[in-house]
């Protein structure tokens, strides 16, 4: 087969119409900025970011970084950002798992499964997500028991406030276990290399050794260095559980809401991807004598992934932005803290710019990462 000839190189010539449009936009932007500035000055408003170092003075529902009301506005914004990133990360994983599973079911052999997948997709893509969130939140708050009557399974407790569970006490020595884990992962490879060098033949380690070695190493290090030194176990004291770790109910509810909401849309993306690979591809693979799993792994999946990355990118970016509905049920995300900061400092323009900038950076980094991955996939195939 004659390979297709590459397209002719694009001529780098700037067109007059482009210049007009771009300079028109630039003039409009400059005019808007000058106008805002002039009118703010006339109204006695002096824009600036000096307020960021002032004391925030309010508390947030939960934080991943140390924060108290005495901390600065910068810190509370960072705490909100960390909450948003964490929530978005959990939601992306959840939505992807749900979406891929439902997508597979929707093209699968079982008619009941297909019917279920269609019902799920149609239900959740036709409901507003804020409504789903509020319904689930109210249902969870009503349905789950009060903290004093929490459902308990050993040291795990679930109430309408939170999920409380024990956590190991690291005493700052957690790195020892990480080191042991790394050693456990590398050791089998070293032995492999050693054997190859001295015996001159490749002897791949069995899977049991590859998995077992890190486990044994970590356990040995744990016993030897007494890491963790113990567990912090949640106990009901006074009004609430003390000790252990806590995941708030609102976090769970938002994660589930966005997980199933975007899961429905991802299921459609996956279904579209699967159905876009012509049947002839798998028939050809079978004709070549590939097994079913080889067909999926080597023929179907690479094509599907390449097709679904752009719409998945869109889903992930939408999901990140949609975490902002968390404000409705009291999860202190970026949007929530930004709103409170605006009300306290009354710097709406500055805070909105900061908030927009942070969401922009967050969404663009995810989009860029996925685009790079796709470019690499395409590059690998055309090589």
């Amino acid at each position, binding site marked *: 087969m004659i390979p297709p000839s590459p397209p002719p190189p694009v001529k780098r010539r700037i067109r007059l119409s482009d210049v007009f449009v771009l300079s028109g936009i630039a003039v409009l932007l400059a005019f808007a900025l000058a106008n805002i500035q002039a009118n703010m000055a006339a109204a006695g408003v002096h824009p600036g970011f000096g307020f960021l170092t002032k004391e925030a003075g309010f508390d947030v529902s939960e934080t991943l970084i140390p924060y108290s009301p005495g901390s600065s506005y910068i810190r509370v914004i960072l705490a909100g950002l960390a909450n948003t990133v964490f929530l978005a990360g959990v939601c992306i994983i959840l939505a992807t798992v749900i979406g891929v599973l439902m997508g597979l079911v929707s093209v699968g052999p079982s008619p009941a499964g297909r019917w279920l997948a269609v019902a799920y997709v149609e239900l959740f893509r036709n409901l507003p997500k804020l409504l789903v969130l509020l319904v689930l939140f109210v249902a969870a708050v009503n349905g789950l028991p009060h903290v004093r009557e929490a459902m308990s399974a050993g040291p795990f407790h679930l109430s309408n*406030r939170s999920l409380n569970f024990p956590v190991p006490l690291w005493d700052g020595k957690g790195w020892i276990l990480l080191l042991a884990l790394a050693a456990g992962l590398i050791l089998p490879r070293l032995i492999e290399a050693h054997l190859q060098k001295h015996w001159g033949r490749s002897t791949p380690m069995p899977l049991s050794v590859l998995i077992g070695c890190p486990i044994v190493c970590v356990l040995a290090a744990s016993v030897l260095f007494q890491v963790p030194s113990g567990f912090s176990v949640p106990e009901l004291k006074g009004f609430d559980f003390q000790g252990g770790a806590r995941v708030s109910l*609102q976090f769970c509810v938002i994660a589930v809401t966005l997980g199933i909401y975007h899961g429905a849309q991802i299921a459609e993306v996956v279904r579209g991807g699967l159905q876009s690979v012509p049947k002839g591809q798998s028939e050809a693979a079978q004709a070549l004598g590939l097994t079913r799993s080889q067909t999926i792994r080597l023929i179907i999946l690479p094509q599907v992934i390449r097709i679904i990355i752009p719409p998945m990118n869109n889903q992930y970016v939408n999901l990140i932005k949609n975490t902002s509905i968390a404000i409705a049920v009291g999860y202190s995300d970026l949007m929530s803290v930004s709103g409170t900061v605006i009300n306290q400092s009354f710097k709406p323009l500055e805070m909105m710019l900061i908030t927009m900038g942070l969401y922009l950076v967050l969404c663009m980094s995810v989009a860029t990462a996925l685009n790079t991955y796709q470019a690499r996939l395409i590059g690998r195939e055309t090589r």
Partner: protein
Amino acid sequence: MKLVLSSLVAAMTAAAASPALAGPVLDEIKEKDQLICLVNPNSPGFSVPDSNGVYQGFNTDFCRMAAAAILGDAGKADIRGIGFSDSMKTLVADGAHMASRSITATGTRDADAGMAFVATTFYDGQGFMIPKSIGVTSATQLEGATVCAEDGSTTLLNIADWFSDRTISYRVENIADKTARLEAFFNGKCDVYASDVTALLSDRLLSDTPEAYTILPEVISAEPLTLVTQPDQALEAAVFWAFQVMLNADVYGITSDNVDQIIADLGSYPKAVNRLFAEDSATAEMAEKLGLPQDWAYQVISQVGAYSEVFEKHLGKETAFGLELNETANALTADGGQMYAYPIR
């Protein structure tokens, strides 16, 4: 969010359009023959839509007061329900003329160029509501408790101050959606609900069992709930003095029921009453200078009533709140409260 953005855009265009004249907002109200006034969309007693979708309540009556004073017709108040933090943005962005929605006057808010705090209609304070079943009698026993409060409000700062001053540890649930917040409290997701005492009284009524909740004695903040207008000297003066007319009416025992009788026989009433309603009165002189209807003081009293009338109608003993005006800080100074009627002369 859409509202915020559109109001920002509106702010930019409005700022470009209007030079700082005395009274441009008042002129705009008269030109459109309508006064846009923002209230809380769901606050029983203060502002809730009735069966016809018309907002009724204590706060809405001050919207009607302003419309009666400026346009001569309380019905020309275009009363719109809006959330707390959006209301201030809307006002700054020229999306409304005034707000009567229990906004606390604070120094930094007033210092902002886009809002004028005009007249305090209600002296409130922030308190704590608890289910009686948790058996707490003072907020100092709330060590380790979870507190529900509205996201973005000064409530969050007051709680943080109060608990940290007493080194009491607590957890906050800052929930923006009111339904979600109240469901969380009524179902025990939080132990305590913090808000202005009057809001607590009003929200308690939304529970299936209001009697199961009680309000702790600690009032931890001063909350002068104040009418806010767009900055405009003439509009501020009109709203401020319309409110003073309502207070003066209480001082002299004038109500919407007897005001016609009094005017028919003005000669036999004190000078101060004459200065309110006579044709060559102080209010008529003010009307000319501010550009109000000549009989604006009469319109306010006949269409809206005296301050105590409004209070009794929406929050008084006959209502579910059962508040006794003279037991609150909202009584006239003569009765031990903080409502001080300025002289109209």
